[in-house]
């Protein structure tokens, strides 16, 4: 009977914590997923100051503010308790997401629009920095020691599921605003993009209601009643050598490798499929959606396994597999969509040209759409835009060329299979990490101590993966997969450090 009550209690704790964390990730990702649409609404490229604010919103929120949020809310969580701190992060995240959906465009209110978006995006980053550590700590402190990996793994699924839901909501909204697909997309780009932001408030209200009814962590309550809570969590976490060395070990031996594997397997994979393989918008997203759907149960499976055999080697095996197979898997992704490996059906080739007159000029904007069909069923649309000059012999030096490929069913599922493998590595490194981090630090400074290495590893090392990888492809233009050098190097260093220094022991108790 007691066991039954205990189990019921922990599921309530997991439900309340996971739902809130899921919503926070959803809120954070919809901004990233809609970056292009938001940029058009708030950060016109023609205005340098607005473009500058856009760069700040992209970089500052993920890389500076998240670790800062970890410090601010981690400290608060160790001073006043876990429950009210991660309630506050939820309110801040939900409120700022809803507010982004309400801001009038740059055309309506001018510079105030991008400034407001930047401020709200920074609040989002701050809130996310405080949320994860609180939720993981809260669940771990309710869990029995022998199943800590299993119970905290539900928190671990939320980051990937938040991405899954954000992609799903965006795709659904994009296609259901009008019966005509082209009109629906146009409406989405005009005002429909606000819907994913606005519906967040409903989810947040439900989550706040549930979290309000939850009790404080029993371990934290015990410390508080004994008067043993930390007076200065930041000093005790980072000014105390015994703890600081564990913070550094957590960062360099676990979270930095986890971060790059996480972002390569999900964000960079999707960006690679869309921008390098040139797979069309919907397919590049649904491939990721399927991959996530099939791989997500493995977060729970591997974390549960870590309760039996330890966390260390499961996490490191994820990094090892990533290091040895990334080049092969991404080369395969590229080859699947590579037209050089395919045979064109010449009889099905279609070319359409559209001319639009340029005001006060005798020239025209010429748009040439070429549809190519291949024997395996793949189709490719190439849209070339240039100027048709009235003066004979004059031509556009560099016409704009956009390519969009629609994969045949067989190739589509091959890509899903590869993305599934990439996300499977994510489940290996990420599934057990909450339990691993919780067990490294004592209760009174746990929130602060675990939040910082997590958000530097995940936010900085991981978050920078798509940017650095893309940057490398602009420097070494001949090599399509050169971007993988960054995650491979970071994961290798982390794997070596983890293998040499980390202990595979499971903390028998986290009750001090």
């Amino acid at each position, binding site marked *: 009977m007691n066991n039954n009550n205990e189990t019921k209690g922990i599921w309530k704790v997991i439900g309340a914590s996971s739902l809130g964390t899921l919503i926070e990730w959803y809120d954070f990702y919809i901004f990233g997923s809609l970056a292009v649409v938001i940029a058009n609404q708030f950060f016109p490229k023609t205005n340098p100051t607005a473009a500058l604010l856009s760069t*700040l919103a992209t970089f500052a929120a993920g890389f500076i503010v998240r670790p800062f949020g970890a410090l601010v809310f981690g400290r608060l969580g160790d001073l006043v308790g876990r429950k009210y701190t991660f309630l506050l992060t939820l309110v801040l995240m939900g409120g700022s997401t809803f507010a982004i959906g309400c801001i009038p465009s740059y055309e309506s209110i001018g510079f105030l629009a991008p400034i407001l978006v930047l401020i709200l995006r920074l609040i989002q980053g701050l809130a996310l920095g405080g949320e994860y550590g609180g939720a993981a700590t809260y669940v771990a402190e309710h869990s029995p020691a022998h199943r800590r990996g299993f119970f905290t793994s539900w928190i671990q699924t939320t980051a990937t599921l938040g991405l899954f839901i954000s992609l799903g909501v965006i795709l659904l909204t994009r296609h259901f605003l009008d019966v005509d697909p082209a009109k629906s997309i146009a409406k989405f780009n005009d005002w429909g993009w606000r819907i994913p932001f606005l519906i967040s408030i409903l989810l947040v209200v439900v989550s706040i209601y549930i979290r309000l009814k939850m009790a404080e962590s029993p371990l934290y309550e015990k410390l508080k009643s004994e008067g043993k809570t930390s007076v200065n969590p930041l000093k005790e976490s980072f000014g105390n*050598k015994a703890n600081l060395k564990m913070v550094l070990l957590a960062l360099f031996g676990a979270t930095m490798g986890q971060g790059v594997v996480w972002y390569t397997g999900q964000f960079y994979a999707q960006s690679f499929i869309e921008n390098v393989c040139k797979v069309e918008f919907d397919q590049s997203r649904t491939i990721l959606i399927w991959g996530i759907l099939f791989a997500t149960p493995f977060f729970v499976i591997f974390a549960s396994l870590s309760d039996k055999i330890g966390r260390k080697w499961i996490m490191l095996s994820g990094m090892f597999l990533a290091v040895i197979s990334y080049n092969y898997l991404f080369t395969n992704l590229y080859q699947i969509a590579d037209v050089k490996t395919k045979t064109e059906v010449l009889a099905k080739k279609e070319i359409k040209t559209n001319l639009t007159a340029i005001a006060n000029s005798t020239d025209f904007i010429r748009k040439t759409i070429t549809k190519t069909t291949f024997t395996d069923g793949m189709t490719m649309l190439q849209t070339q835009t240039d100027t048709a000059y009235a003066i004979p012999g004059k031509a556009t030096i560099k016409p704009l060329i956009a390519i969009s490929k629609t994969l045949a069913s067989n190739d589509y599922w091959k890509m899903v299979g590869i993305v599934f493998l990439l996300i499977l590595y994510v489940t290996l490194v990420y599934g057990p990490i909450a339990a691993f981090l919780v067990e490294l630090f004592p209760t009174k400074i746990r929130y602060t101590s675990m939040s910082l290495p997590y958000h530097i590893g995940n936010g900085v090392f991981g978050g920078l993966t798509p940017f650095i990888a893309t940057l490398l492809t602009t420097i070494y233009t001949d090599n399509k997969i050169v971007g993988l050098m960054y995650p491979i190097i970071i994961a290798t260093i982390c794997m070596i450090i983890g293998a040499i220094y980390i202990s595979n022991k499971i903390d028998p108790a986290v009750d001090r």
Partner: protein
Amino acid sequence: MNAIKRYAGLIWIILGPLGIHYLLQTASAEIAKKPGIDTQIQWGVFITVFYPIAIGFILFGLYALEGNYDQLPAASSEIDDYQAKPL
């Protein structure tokens, strides 16, 4: 194993400044190539963020070299015992 832990510390101590040197070199080359404000902000953020991380990496190497990772606490609660020892 403890000897490996300590000697590897030297590698981490060397990798920290090397990483920063590479970052600064790449940043200045990229800013010179594309001298826009966007590039400056982007690399400015990279340097601001990675500089303290590199210092942390050197510190990690130093701790390893000193033998601070020879014996890790078996449980998180053991860390409390070290409270009296400041940095």
